[in-house]
Structures are given as C-alpha cells and as structure tokens.
C-alpha cells in the first residue's frame, strides 16, 4: 500500500552568522494513512524542523532544502507557496507545544476557529460558526456556543490545547502533525489530551505524526517510531519492537537514563555522558560517537547507514556495531 506521506532524503540547512546549521541531514520515512508515526528526539535533533519543512514553513532566504516529501503523489517541497497554503490547514494540519502562545491573544477563539474554516471552505459565517461549535463539542468542551466568544487567556492549558486540536481538525485533514502537544500540560490533562487525539484519529482515519522527547508518550499513541539524533534517524521500528529490542546505543541510553514507574526503583540512573552535539560543527562519522560507550575506530570516520537490523526486518538501525554486540550490556 503506498504511503500517504513519503519523505525521502530530506536535508535542511540554515545559513547563519555562526555558520551553516545542519538541522536535518537526510531523513526518510513513510506515514501510512490512518497510522501514527512517532518521532522521538531531544532539542537539536531536527525533529521539529523536519515537519515544519514538510509544511513549507521554513522557506526563507537563508534556508537550503533538498529531498522529497511526496504527499498523495505530489512533492510538497517543490510546490508553490500558493499550493502549500491550500494544503496547510486543509489536507495537513499542525498543532504546537504551547497552546497559550499559539493562539492569538486578541481574537476570540470563535473568530480563530471560523477563520480556519473559512480559509478553505466557502461557507457563510453563520455556517462556519455552527461548525466551530460542533468542533468544540467534539473535543470535549461544554457550552460550546458560549465558549466561542471567549478569549484564549480565559481558558486553562488543557482547554486551549483542545481548541488547537479543534482548529487543526476543522477541515478534516488527511494528516495531523502534533509537535510536543502535551509537553506543556499537567500529567492528568496530558492523559486526557492523548486519549482525545487517539479517539479523534480513529474516528476520522487521520494519519498522524507525533513529535516528542517523551518515550512514554510515543509508547502510548504511536504505531511506528523514528528516533532522531543530530538531524538523522538513528533507529526506526514498529512500536512494540522498538521497546522490546532497542538496538541503537542512543535509544538504549535514553531508556536506561530515565526513571521508570513500570520498573522497580533502581539504584542509579545511567545518564548518557556528554552533551548534545553542535549542529554547526557536528562530529565526523556517526554523530553519536563522542557519547557512545561502545564507539570504536570506524565510528569517527564512517557515517553508518540506516539499515535493517536483521534481513527483511522492519526494524532499521544506523550503527556500525555488530547486531549481536549492540544488545550486549556494555
């Protein structure tokens, strides 16, 4: 089955005063219709820049983009700005991390919702208003018509994120990109929002890319996971497989360094040594090698390709280590 979104060899570089920032260094992945891809990474991994580029939101004079992002057969990266505007908010929608700063403080949420609807559908204001109320009810907000005339600052964080979700789903997009949608929310609210997103996705058959640094969140909602480090995908696998059998030292390092409620209280956490790499002057060879306990000679010279961990496996890893060596404790 051909994928809804096919990204191939996406490269994004920013020219800045400090040098060229290698934000994304050649990533490729597929998103199937109705499925969820989770992209996991820390700050500087390129996870957000990649999706913003697919949406066409990083086109500026100092940005160099190459590669392909095939959505329904046509390449988004070479589409005109006008074509992209038609797609944004209609076929592909995005929600962001901080719902307070992501909503315009001066307009009522009704006005912002109606704007999102009327940008892509020629309907009357009254019809758009009805649809907006319907959307608010769908995301679990009561008294929808009263809420339409309220302002963002009158809502709590969880409610605002629901509004963002409503806005993103207002035109029944084929793909929803959620960038750290729950990071700024409380734990109990986070759970509600994740459940809401999963329910809505199931009902409407929307595909989703969820970006997060939280391995728990991707375990919760994703079908497929891609782990990014320094602008590249270092490991990619179906969700159960990734957690059952993590291969890349970075993924294993992450899992070992976070305190977990589902394990017994361990005596100590094993942090990953060192710091995230500079994107202006990334390490040669494998970008993770300076922090890797198992790095050996070739790691600093050769860039490991993203390859199946075992023949014909859906589990891809970018590591020069022998597969057997990766799983062995250091």
């Amino acid at each position, binding site marked *: 089955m051909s994928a809804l979104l096919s990204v191939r060899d996406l490269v994004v570089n920013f020219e800045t005063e400090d040098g060229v920032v290698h934000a994304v260094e050649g990533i490729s992945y597929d998103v199937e219709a109705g499925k969820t891809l989770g992209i996991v990474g820390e700050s500087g991994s390129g996870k957000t820049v990649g999706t913003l580029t697919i949406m066409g939101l990083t086109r500026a004079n100092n940005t160099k983009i190459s590669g392909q992002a095939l959505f329904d057969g046509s390449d988004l990266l070479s589409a005109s700005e006008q074509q992209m505007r038609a797609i944004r908010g209609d076929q592909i929608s995005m929600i962001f991390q901080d719902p307070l700063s992501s909503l315009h403080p001066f307009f009522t949420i009704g006005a912002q919702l109606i704007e999102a609807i009327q940008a892509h559908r020629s309907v009357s204001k009254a019809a758009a208003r009805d649809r907006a109320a319907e959307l608010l009810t769908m995301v679990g907000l009561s008294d929808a018509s009263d809420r339409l005339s309220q302002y963002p600052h009158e809502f709590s964080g969880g409610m605002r994120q629901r509004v963002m979700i409503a806005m993103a789903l207002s035109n029944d997009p084929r793909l929803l990109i959620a960038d750290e949608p729950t990071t700024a929310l409380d734990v109990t609210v986070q759970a509600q929002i994740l459940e809401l997103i999963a329910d809505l996705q199931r009902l409407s058959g929307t595909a989703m890319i969820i970006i997060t640094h939280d391995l728990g969140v991707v375990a*919760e909602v994703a079908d497929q996971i891609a782990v990014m480090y320094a602008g590249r995908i270092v490991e990619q696998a179906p969700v159960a497989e990734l957690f059952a059998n993590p291969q890349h030292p970075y993924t294993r390092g992450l899992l070992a*360094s976070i*305190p977990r*409620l589902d394990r017994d*209280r361990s005596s100590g956490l094993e*942090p990953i040594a060192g710091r995230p790499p500079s994107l202006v002057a990334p390490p040669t060879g494998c970008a993770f090698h300076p922090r890797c306990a198992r790095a050996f000679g070739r790691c600093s010279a050769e860039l490991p390709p993203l390859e199946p961990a075992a023949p014909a496996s859906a589990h891809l890893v970018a590591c020069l280590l022998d597969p057997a060596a990766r799983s062995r404790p250091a």
Partner: protein
Amino acid sequence: MSAADPLIEVRDLQMHFPLQRGIIFQRQYGAVRAVDGVSFSVGRGETFGLVGESGCGKSTTGRLLLRLLEPTGGQLFFEGEEITHLGRRQLAPLRRDAQMVFQDPYSSLNPRKTVGSIIAEPFVIHRLARSADERRNEVRDLMDRVGLNPEHYNRYPHQFSGGQRQRIGVARAIALKPKLLVADEPVSALDVSIQAQIINLLADLQRDLGLTLVFIAHDLSVVRHMCDRIAVMYLGKIVELAASEQCFAAPRHPYTGALLASVPVPDPSLRAIDRRPALTGDVPSPSAPPPGCRFHPRCGKAQALCASDEPQLKAQDNGSLAACHFPLNAAEAAAMLPRRSS
C-alpha cells in the same frame, strides 16, 4: 522516621494571596489559597518530595520553607526554632543554611556576571572567604565538584548549555554548605539525556554533604527515584503523605492513583489509556476550591459525605497517610499502576 529531630517542621501552613477589586479603593473580595493548611516534617539527611500538578501549591510551599514568602497562617520551624514571622535581618543566618535550586537555568543566572562571580556571590554576601584568592579557590572547588571545568571560571552563562547552567545553579546553592536544599523542578527544563546527569549530581552531593533535600516536581518518575518520602498535593492541601515506595506501589488517595494511572510509560503494553480512571475536567482554581474534599468533583469514588466533610490525613493500612473518606483498596490501586500483572 523523622519524628525525633526534624530539620524542618511545618504546621497548618497557609499562604493566601489576596484578590482585589474596586474603582478607586481596592477591596479584597477573595484570595488565592495557594497553600491552605499543610503540615509535615522533614528529617535530617532525608529527601522529601513534593509532587502535584499546576496550582497545587508545591512551589509556593518550597518558597515558604525558605521564608522567601511570609506565611499568612500556620507555623514554620527550622531546627526547632520558629521562623514564621521573622524579619529580614533575623532571617539572614537562615540564608546560609537553606538554599534553593531553581527550575529555569536560562533565567536564574545573571547573564551579565561571569560564572565565577555568580558562584562566589554567596561568599561575598555572607562575608566569608575574605580574600579574592580564597574565593577563587572555593569557586574552583565547587565547579569541579558539580562537574564543570574550573578553567571556565571567567565565562558567561550564555556560553554554557542548559545542563551546565543548572550545574552552576547547584554550585551556587551549595557554596556555603547549607543544611537544606530545596530544588524546585530542577530538571524539568532540561533535555532527557541531561536530566539523569543532574539527578545523579544532586543525589551524590546529598550523600557527600549530608544535605537534606526537598525535591519539588511534577514528574512522578523522577520524584519516585529521588525521594524517601513524598507528599502529594492538590489545591493547596496534602492529600497523601507516604514513604516513596508505598506511595507508588500502593497509593491510597484516589488522586494519587489517578496521577499514577495517567503517566505514560515506555512500554506499549502498559498504556495509560487502558489504566486510567475517567478523570474529567481541569484542576479548579485555587481561589474557589470545592467544599468538603477538594477532589470530590473529579473523583470516581465520591459520595455525599465528600461534598460536605473535608477529610483529614489519616493513617492507612499500609502505613501511609491519606486524606480521604473512601481511600483506594489494594485491588483498585493495583489496577491503576503501570505494572505488568504477574
């Protein structure tokens, strides 16, 4: 555990922030009851956790412990002496013994001062290590102890990463070898792979310096890892007070259970969606807490009594204290936990 000689003791502590309104003259029409009657004690050398969501009062409690705020009610004791309403000058000696590490490493360091002068400042303020040489040596020692390169003495905060900046904050806090360290969300603003480094640093320092640590966080996994005892806060009150393992293996208050059930864990077979109780709505405002038990509007086990009678902290079957009329039983608790059923 700590009854004999607690370092800190807190009795019915209250912090109400007034709300005012009026055309010309401001009248108080209500208050934000950020901390509304909280009691606990912390023993020497203990790591005590304060956990809860936004608006629960944990950060305010942390500030009250250090007397950065003056309580509007209740009592506060440090090493047996009452410090509730002491004036600024009388509090000065306390400042040497009690320090804080803040959440945001990007805004809690003065960008115009070198790292060396930031860490040396406590010495200057309290007139210790008089000569510049002495101070420089102390600062170098501290930088080394927290894992920073002492040669970077003259660099500015913006030249460091988030994790390193947090180390600078820690160095500054332990400079005068305090007895108490309050860490307010010390790792929330850091990348995941760095969080463990700072957590380990705090644990090591506590062991080496014999610190008493009050750890405030919303991240339950981190709190469980770090702390010996935990207080779970909701809308300005403590709803559960228990040893760490008890709290996380056998929660008794429905809110604690709901918190644990909501945390997503890195195991796809233990999804929170399957575990969690139907907890509706957002946390109510601390200026208008619900009557009776504050959690009752969202609680699955609430009954008529809960709306009228505010429960007090009571000992439970497993030794923890919970403020609930109908606490969770073992089976209910187990269903909420992210554990594989054996």
